[in-house]
C-alpha cells in the first residue's frame, strides 16, 4: 500500500505494509531519529510524535491510520542552530542524560502548554504521567519546562 505522510513539513510517499507501526516508517523509511522504540505498547513515551497536532504513540499506530497525516517529530520543533524555545530551555537547564526519552518529554510538555499556557507544575506533571525517564533526570526536565512556561507567560 502507498502511504502519504507530511513529516516536519516535507511530503513523502511510501510503499509499505499498512500494518507497519508508524514508528518504523519514520525511523527506517524516513531516517528520523527523534521518535524511538521504547516499549511497543505505549507505556513509556519514547516514540511520541504529533499527528495533526495531537500527541500519539507511534509504536502502536499502524501507518494506515496516518495516511495523509501531518506528523511533527522532535526534529520538527527546532534545529541545532535554532532550537525551539522549549528545546532551548532543556539545553539551558542541562536537562538530559542519555536522552532517549526526550521525544516523549518535550513533545508532551509542549502539548500541555500549547493547550494550557498557564498550567501549574502539578498539571504539567500530570500530563507527563505516561512518560518515563530511566536516567531520572526529572528535576532538570521539570525545571526546563517551568522555564519555558514562564517565558510563555512573559511573551503573552
Amino acid at each position, binding site marked *: 500500500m502507498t502511504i502519504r505522510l507530511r513529516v516536519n513539513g516535507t511530503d513523502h510517499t511510501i510503499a509499505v*505494509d499498512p500494518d*507497519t*507501526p508508524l514508528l*518504523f516508517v519514520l*525511523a*527506517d523509511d524516513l*531516517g*528520523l*531519529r*527523534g521518535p*524511538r*522504540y*521504547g*516499549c*511497543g*505498547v505505549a*507505556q*513509556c513515551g*519514547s516514540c511520541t510524535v504529533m499527528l495533526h497536532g495531537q500527541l500519539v504513540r507511534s509504536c502502536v499506530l499502524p501507518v494506515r491510520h496516518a495516511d495523509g497525516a501531518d506528523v511533527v*517529530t*522532535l*526534529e520538527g*520543533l*527546532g*534545529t*541545532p542552530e535554532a*532550537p525551539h524555545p522549549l*528545546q532551548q530551555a*532543556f*539545553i539551558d537547564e*542541562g*536537562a*538530559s*542524560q*542519555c*536522552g*532517549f*526519552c*526526550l*521525544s516523549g*518529554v*518535550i513533545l508532551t510538555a509542549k502539548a500541555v502548554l500549547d493547550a494550557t499556557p498557564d498550567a501549574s507544575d*502539578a498539571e504539567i*506533571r500530570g*500530563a*507527563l*504521567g*505516561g*512518560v*518515563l*525517564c*530511566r*536516567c*531520572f*533526570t*526529572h*528535576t*532538570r*526536565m*521539570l525545571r526546563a519546562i517551568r522555564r519555558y512556561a514562564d517565558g510563555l507567560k512573559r511573551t503573552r
Partner: protein
Amino acid sequence: MTTRRDFLRTGGALVVSFGAHALLPRAATAQPATAFTTRPSHIDAGALDAWLAVGADGRVTAYTGKCDFGQGIFTAQVQLVAEELCVPIARVTLIECDTAVTPDQGTTSGSQSTPVNFNTENLALAAATAREALLEMASKRLGVPVARLAVADGTISGPHGARVTYGELVGGRRFELPLRRTAKRKPPSAWTTLGKPVTSLDRVALVTGGFEYVHHVRVPGMLHGRVVRPPDMGATLVGVEASSVRGVPGFVDLVVRESFVGVVARTQYAAMVAAQQLKVRWKPGPALPPRDTFFEFLRRQPSRDQVAVDSTDVDAALGRAGDHVIRARYTYPYQMHGSLGPSCAVADVRADEVTVWSPTQSAYPTRSCIAKLLGIPVETVRVVFKRGSGCYGLNGADAVSFDAAILSQAVRAPVRVQYTRQDEMKWENYGAACAIDLRAVLGADGTIAAWDREAWVAALGSRPGYDRPGNIITGMLLGHEPEPLAIGPAEPPKGKLNNNSNAVPPYVAGCIAGACGGEGTIRSERVVTHTVRSPLFTGPLRSPLRIQNTFANESFMDELCARAGADPVAFRLHHLHDDRIIGVLRAAARAAGWQAGPRRSRAPAGDGVARGRGVACVAYEGHNGYAALIADVDVHVATGVVHPRRYVVANDCGPISNPDGLRNQLEGGLLQGTSRALVEEVTWDERRVTSVDWASYPSLHLDYDVPAIEIVFVTPANVPATGAGETSITLVPAAIGNAVFDATGARLRDVPFTPARVLAALRDAGSTG
C-alpha cells in the same frame, strides 16, 4: 589495507568516518565496513600515539577506552584533554571505544572512568606527556628554554614574539614517544577548562532529536533481525516449524543454533511479525523457587564463601552478650537495569572481517567473545561503540551484539537486531537479590562493641569478559556455560582490606594481620558473604551490591543508634575515624540543619502524615568516593505511602571535572535510588519472570512529585579524583528507611518499601493509630 597509522595520516578522514558522528547529528550514518587490521595488542597503551594525535590544522584527536552512555564522561574527557593541552574544547575530537583505533581499557563501569583516566595515568598522563613534548619541540625550534615558554590556545610562545603552533610542530605526524611517568598534570588551582561547568557536548543534538544512537545505525544491504527467546530460564530447544514463517512478506531466513533462535527479514516489521508467528517447541527448564520464601531458599543453598574481615573474637563477644545481642535481617530484591530503549546492535559479518556497532560497555571483551562465538580470529573483528539507551550497568547490550553477529554470519548480510521490551526485561542480568543478617553488641557506654555480618547473594553469570559468553543469555543459548560457582569455604582474609562491594561497614576498623583499612573504630568485626547460584541471571547494576550492602549496614547502624538512645549523626561520627567520610557526614548535617537528638516516633500530624528525617553515609568501595545523604520523608500512615520531600547530599569525589555533569549524576542517582527503594522489584511465577513491561515492573514516571534536592560539594585538597556516578544512589534506600523509622517508629527491612510492607511495619511498631 588501511591501518590506524593511515587514519592518522589522513587526519580528518578518521574523524569524519568514525568519531564525529556522535556530535554531528546531520552527518551520514555509520560507514560500511572498510578494510582494517587489528591485533590483540595492536594499540600499545604505553605509547603516546595510542591516546593523542595533532592534525596539521592544530586539532587534537584523543582516543579513549571509556565511553559515554549518558553519564557525561565524554564531555569530561574532552575537558581533560583541552585543559592539559591548553586548547579550547571545540578543537578537541574524542574517539570513544572503537577497537580499531582506541586502546583497550576493558569495561567502562564501576565508577572507574574518573579514577583511571583523570589522575596520573592513561588519558591524563598522555595529555600531560604531549604538552611537555610539545614544549620541548618548541624549545628546540625557537631556541628558547622551556622555562621561558608559555602555551595558550594551541600556540607556544617565547620572548620577542617567537611563536609556533602545535600544528607546525607535529601536525599530521606521530609523536613516537612513550607515556612519560614523570609528566606533570596541571594542578586543579591552574585549571581553566576542567572544574568548570560545561554543558554536555551531546545535549543540543539530543534535545533537537538528531543524535545518532546505535538504534539509528544503517548499513547498505542491512536486514532486520529479531530473537525468539525460550519461555523460561533453562528451557532448551526441541524444534522449530520453519513453515510457520515462510509466508511472512519480507521474511528472509530462520537461524537456529543450539537453543538460539532468530529470524531475519527485510524490514523491522516483517522481522517482528516473523518472530511472533514462529512456532517453537521448548523443553521447559526447572521450576523457579517460590518468591514468597525466596530469601529462605537462598540461605539453604550451597555457597562460595568469602570473609572480608574477621577479628576471630566475634563469636565470643556475641556469646558474652547473650540475650543482649541486637539482630536484624534485611532483604533486597532482584532489580532491573530496565533501559528505556531495548538493546540494539548492527553486525556486518564478512568473510575476512567483521564490524559490530554496539552499545556495549566493553568493546574489547565483546570483540573477543564475538570472535569465539563465530569461530573466527579475534584480529578480524572490530567493535565500534555507539551509544544506546542509558544502561546503568550490564543490560542487554552485550547479548544483542552477540545476536547480531550470529544472525549476520548466518545470512551473510549486515543485520540489525532490535530487542523487544520483553526480550530486554526477561533476559537481562538483574541486580542481585540478597539476604543480609546483621548482629551487634552494644557496650555499656553505648559504643558498638562487636559487628557481625553474614549475607547470601544470588549470582549467575555476569559480564562475559573476554572469554565467558555463557555469562549472558545469548552465550548460554549457544551452549556456553556461565562462570561456574566454586562452592567452598572461605580463605582467611589476607592482604589489604577489599571493600569493593561495601559489605564492610565504614564503622569497623577493617584489620587484617594488623593492617587496618576500615574507616571506623569497631575492633571486634566479622563480614561473611555466601554467594549462591541464582535461578536468574545477575550482573552489575548501578552500585552493584554496594546499594544492597549499604541499605543493610546503614539501616542497622540506625537500629543500633536507636537502642543506644543516641543521635544518628553523632553516633556515626563516634564510630568513624576517616576524615573524608566524616567530612561529608558533617557537611550534609550542616546543610540540612540537622537537629541533634535521639530519634523517636511521633504522632502523625492532623493530615495523617508522619514526617521524619533519616541519614546514611558511605565510603564508596572503601575509597572511591564519599557521600552522606539526609532525607526528609512523609509517611501517609493510613495508606502506607512513603514520599521523600527533600534530599541533602554531600559528595566528595576529589577534584571535580565538570560540576554540572556531577550534579546531574548525583540528582539522577538520588531519584533512581528513590524508584529502586520504593517500587522496583523483579517478579516471577513458578516458571518464568513476570516483570515484562512497565506495568509489571514499575518505575517512577515523570509525574512523580520529586523531592527537592540540595547538593554540597566537599573538595579536600591534594587527593586523587574518584568516581561519583554511584555514590548518591547507594544511600537512598537506607536514608528513606531511617526517616520512616524517625517518623513512625516502624523499621523497614525489605526493599522495596511498598505500601503493604509499610503498613505491616507500622502495625508491628504499633503506631498506626
